[in-house]
Structures are given as structure tokens and as C-alpha cells.
């Protein structure tokens, strides 16, 4: 291996890559814009939808209740719902979303309640419809308050303390550190994203530098120079690796910034809070450790995609070989989002192991034995892929396929 020659090839490939619009778009522009657009788009859509739904005072019909003036007054007095005149086809009105719900008050409701007989109020709603469920929630809250008042009065009348009805309370208290709470939600996604973007970042240049070179007829030109094929492969490989890492780095940065901005804006409360928490706790060390773990994965991808696309005679043909590879990578990466815990056996499965580890790193867990297994096993796979790429470049029937 000759470092000078590898450097010459690398610099030339870098120069060409920077002049190639397709490379610039796929490895710089897409990762930079994807996350801001995604978060802004989804955030805006969510807040628009939910905000509007919350602002709207849902229209509700009341069925029956003529003999129960107490509850009628309670419902009418609520500012959270708007009572509209009852019509015969109230069911269609719910289905057609003219009203959000209908409350059915059984005959003799007030009497039954007064005599401490059980009674049921029925809320007819449209399951799965956000606005209908908001209306149902508003009605329930109002009615629960009304019920609590009745319980309170009944207990007072019988001279019983409040605790007779509610002998104890149940409360939750979270002891997990805050980064684990945020991380559990987003850790899987981040590992998955970094790995996937590493692949997409390496794909285009890997195909361009192998099949693309054959297609443009420059393969024979470069092979006629005195450079050793090993050096040629390494020069090209380092460029592909660079693009993969740049793509991954840009997307992580852009993802972090998007979440931070989102967290500050509090565009939608729950997700916004999670994002803010996550942003606070993914420190520079976590990001660095994710990158160190992703490095051998990126090597594996870069060498793998180069090897596969070298078989192809044209860029198009290479695409048809590489696309199935995408699925092979997506499956373990997606699997890492499921609630699976890292074990010694899983630590040997390429890609899956790295995604699972990224999930753990983001939540602040460092299992050093797994980290070592994963790092070295992935290094072994990556070295094998690189070796295969070099071997492939030495095969005449691959370089001059007819």
C-alpha cells in the first residue's frame, strides 16, 4: 500500500464528487434539510390540527333528561360544550360530524341518583375521531365533577368523612434519570437514522466510483496508470467512507438542532417536552460514542456497496443490485426499535448490534463488554468487506464484464 497514491486518488475523487450535483444533493442537502422539514412539517401540522380541535367548542346533543333538571343545568352551564337542539336523526349527525357527541340521559335519572340507585349515562361518540374524543373528554370531566359533588354531599349528609369513599390514593413517581426517559423514546430512532443515513450517504458515491466509472469508460484509463489496484480501491473507499460519515454527521446535527428548536417552541406539548429533554441530555460524549460505534458500520457499508456495485456495468444496473441491500439493512435497523435488549449473541449480528447499542448509548447506558464485542465484530465484518472489494478489483471478469 502506498499512502501517497491513495491520497492522490482520494483528492481527485473528492474534487469530482464536489463537482457532482447528484452527490452534493444526496449527501449534503438531503440530510441537512430532511429533519428541519420533517419536524417543522409534522410540528406545524400537529399544532394546527390539535390547536384548532381544542379551540373549537364541540356541539353536543342531549337525548332525554326532561325529568332530570339538575344534570341538564350542569351540562348547559359548562363552557366546554355547546348544547344544540336535539333532532330525530342525532346518530347521523354524529356520523356526519355535524355534532361531536350525544349524551343519553335515562328516564328517572335524577330520582335514581337521589335514591342512591345505580344509573348510567351514555355518551354516543365517533371512535377514533380526534374532535369527537375531545368532546367526550370534556363531557366526562364535567360529569365527573358533578358526580364528585353528589358524593361529597351524600357523605356530608351521612356524617361520613371523605376517606370513607377514598381510603387511599395511588400516585406514580419516576426514578429513572431524565435522559433515560427522553432516550427511551428517541434512542431507537436515532441509532436507526444514523445507520440508515450512513448507508444512503455511501450508496451514491460507491456506485458512481465503480459502476459509474465503468459506464463512463474511465476504468481502463485508470487501470493503465502505474497505481496498484489496492491503492486505487483504498482511495475510492476513503471517499465513499467520508461521504457516509459526513451524511451521518450532518443528519445527526440537523436532527439535534431541529429537536432543540422544536423543544423551545413547544409546538406541541408532550412531544415538544420530550424533544427538549432529549436535546438537553444527548451530550457531546454520547454523540462522539455513537460516531465511534458507527465508524465500523460505515466501513462495512462503504466496502459492501462498492463490492456489489462493481459487478454492474452501469449506474442503473448497480442501483438494481444495491436497492435490495437497503432492505437487508432496514430490517435489523428497524428491529432495533422494538423493545429488544442487547445480549451477547445479538452483539454479533451486524447492523442490529450497532443499532441496539446506539439505543443504549443515547439512554446513558454503557455495557463495556458489549461495546467491545460489537466494535470488534463489526471491525472484522468491515475488514472482510474491504478485503472482498480489493479482491473484486483484481478480477478481470468483474472489471471487464461483457
Amino acid at each position, binding site marked *: 500500500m502506498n499512502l501517497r497514491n491513495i491520497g492522490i486518488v482520494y483528492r481527485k475523487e473528492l474534487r469530482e464528487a464536489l463537482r457532482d450535483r447528484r452527490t452534493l444533493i444526496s449527501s449534503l442537502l438531503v440530510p441537512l434539510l430532511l429533519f428541519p422539514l420533517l419536524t417543522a412539517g409534522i410540528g406545524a401540522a400537529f399544532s394546527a390540527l390539535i390547536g384548532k380541535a381544542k379551540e373549537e367548542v364541540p356541539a353536543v346533543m342531549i337525548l332525554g333528561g326532561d325529568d332530570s333538571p339538575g344534570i341538564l343545568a350542569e351540562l348547559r352551564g359548562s363552557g366546554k360544550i355547546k348544547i344544540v337542539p336535539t333532532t330525530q336523526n342525532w346518530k347521523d349527525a354524529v356520523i356526519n360530524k355535524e355534532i361531536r357527541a350525544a349524551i343519553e340521559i335515562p328516564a328517572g335519572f335524577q330520582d335514581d341518583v337521589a335514591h342512591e340507585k345505580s344509573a348510567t349515562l351514555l355518551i354516543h361518540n365517533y371512535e377514533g375521531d380526534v374532535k369527537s374524543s375531545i368532546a367526550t373528554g370534556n363531557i366526562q370531566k364535567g360529569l365527573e365533577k358533578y358526580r364528585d359533588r353528589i358524593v361529597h354531599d351524600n357523605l356530608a349528609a351521612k356524617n361520613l368523612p371523605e376517606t370513607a369513599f377514598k381510603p387511599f390514593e395511588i400516585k406514580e413517581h419516576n426514578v429513572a434519570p431524565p435522559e433515560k426517559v427522553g432516550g427511551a423514546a428517541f434512542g431507537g430512532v436515532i441509532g436507526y437514522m444514523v445507520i440508515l443515513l450512513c448507508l444512503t450517504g455511501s450508496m451514491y458515491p460507491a456506485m458512481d466510483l465503480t459502476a459509474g466509472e465503468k459506464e463512463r469508460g474511465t476504468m481502463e484509463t485508470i487501470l*493503465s496508470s502505474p497505481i496498484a489496484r489496492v491503492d486505487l480501491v483504498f482511495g475510492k473507499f476513503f471517499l465513499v467512507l467520508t461521504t457516509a460519515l459526513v451524511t451521518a454527521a450532518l443528519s445527526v446535527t440537523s436532527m439535534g438542532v431541529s429537536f432543540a428548536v422544536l423543544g423551545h417552541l413547544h409546538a406541541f406539548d408532550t412531544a415538544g417536552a420530550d424533544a427538549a429533554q432529549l436535546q438537553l441530555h444527548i451530550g457531546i460524549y454520547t454523540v462522539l460514542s455513537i460516531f465511534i460505534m458507527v465508524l465500523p458500520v460505515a466501513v462495512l457499508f462503504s466496502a459492501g456497496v462498492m463490492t456489489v456495485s462493481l459487478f454492474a456495468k452501469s449506474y442503473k444496473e448497480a442501483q438494481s443490485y444495491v436497492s435490495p441491500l437497503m432492505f437487508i439493512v432496514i430490517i435489523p435497523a428497524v428491529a432495533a426499535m422494538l423493545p429488544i435488549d442487547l445480549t451477547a449473541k445479538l452483539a454479533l449480528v451486524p447492523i442490529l448490534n450497532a443499532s441496539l447499542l446506539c439505543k443504549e448509548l443515547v439512554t446513558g447506558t454503557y455495557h463495556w463488554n458489549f461495546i467491545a464485542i460489537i466494535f470488534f465484530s463489526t471491525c472484522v465484518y468491515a475488514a472482510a468487506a474491504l478485503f472482498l472489494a480489493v479482491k473484486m478489483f483484481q478480477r478481470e471478469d468483474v472489471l471487464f464484464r461483457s
Partner: protein
Amino acid sequence: MIETRGLTKTFKDKKRGEIRAVDNVSFVCKPGEIYGLLGANGAGKTTTLRLLATILEPTDGTAIVCGYDVVEAPEKVRANVGFLSTATALYPRLTSQEMVEYFGRLNGLDEATLKKRVDDIFTRLDMNSFRDRRCDKLSTGMKQKTSIARTLVHDPPVMIFDEPTLGLDIMTARTIVGFIRECRQRGKTVIFSTHVMSEVEKLCDIIGIIQSGKLLAEGSLAALRSRYSENDLEEIFVKVVAPHYAGQEAN
């Protein structure tokens, strides 16, 4: 200096079975001489030249180029060879000058020598007007000149050209022919392939007629004329090749 010894290359093809693209070819090409490889389509010209440029590895036999064996020291051979073929394209996103510089660096030239060499070649081949133009924006003639500059940048003692005038207009073709002559004057060993008879008549010191991978006849134009008692090279070529050509068709 090029010397081939029983050079053989076979390809395995699923449909056609084993193809002997180059079959036991031996010849010598000396410095200051132009060796012309004449053959029909599929005769094995490109494969022979690729073997000499170490882009392919021989199945059997070998060749010695500038004292280096193509099998044992392919990188040394390539450092001493300028190879130009119809399949050696330019990098579209590099400028003409960057293209030549890239190959200069790959050939181990230091920056000072490289600059001098590039300036010299660009002036000699009258290429200064398009030095900074990207290769994908060059005309066919400009591209060919850039390719020649690329093969010349390390000043190799051996030049290998595979159909160097293919697809060029008469004026550009003449420039190339003039350039090949100049290489001979500078004492370089030149081998080139073609199926254009007039080029061979004008340029070659030694002519090798190849068909089905076999070197069927070899000698200077005068020697071939007297051996086959024909004046016209085309007639000589047909006489030599015809019996083998029919055989190939039957294959």
C-alpha cells in the same frame, strides 16, 4: 522495447465457450520503430494491447516491456508505458489540465516536474485554449489531444495505441498520425492497432497481421509485398486472412 513470448489469452464465455482471443503470439518491437497490428474486428488486437499494458493478465506466455515482465512486474511496466485506446475515456468532471496532472501524479512526478511537463505538453499539442475546460465539454478532437497528453505526461519509452484515429475527422487524424511519427523520432517504441490500411502503409516499419488471435504474417511493407507478390496492402491482407476468416465464421 517490447518482446512477446507465446502470449496467449483465453476468455470463458457462457454462450461461446472458450475464446482464444490471443493465441501464442510472439513478436519484437524495437525502440525507434512503429509496429502496426493489422486485423479485422474481433481479431484480438485490443486484447493483445491490453496484455502489453497489463490491464489483462496473460493466460499463458508473457511479454517483456522495457525489461519488465508483464506478469511479474505489472506496475513497473505501466510506469514505462503510455496506453491509449478507444476505451480509455476522460473523467468528465475534471478539466483537461487536471486530468493530465492526475496521471502525472499517479506516475510519481513531483509538483515542480509536473508543472514543467504539463506546460510543455499543452504548448506542444496546442491545447492551452481549453486547459481549464471540463473534459465533458470538449470536442472529440480536444478529448483525443487530452488523452494523448495524459499518456505522454510521464514521458514513457513505450507507446501503445489501440485504434487511435477511430472516429476522428481527417484533420485531427492527421495530427495524431504526425504525433505517432514524432514518437518514433524521439526514439520511443510504438505499437498501434488499426484496420485502416493507408495508416499502416504510411507509418509502420513492421506490420503484423492478426486473425483469430494468431499472428499470421509479419514483416516490413516491402517484405510482405515481395512475399505475397502483391503491391496493394489490402490485397495482401485478404490473402493472409481469408482462409482463417472463413474458419472463424464457421465457429
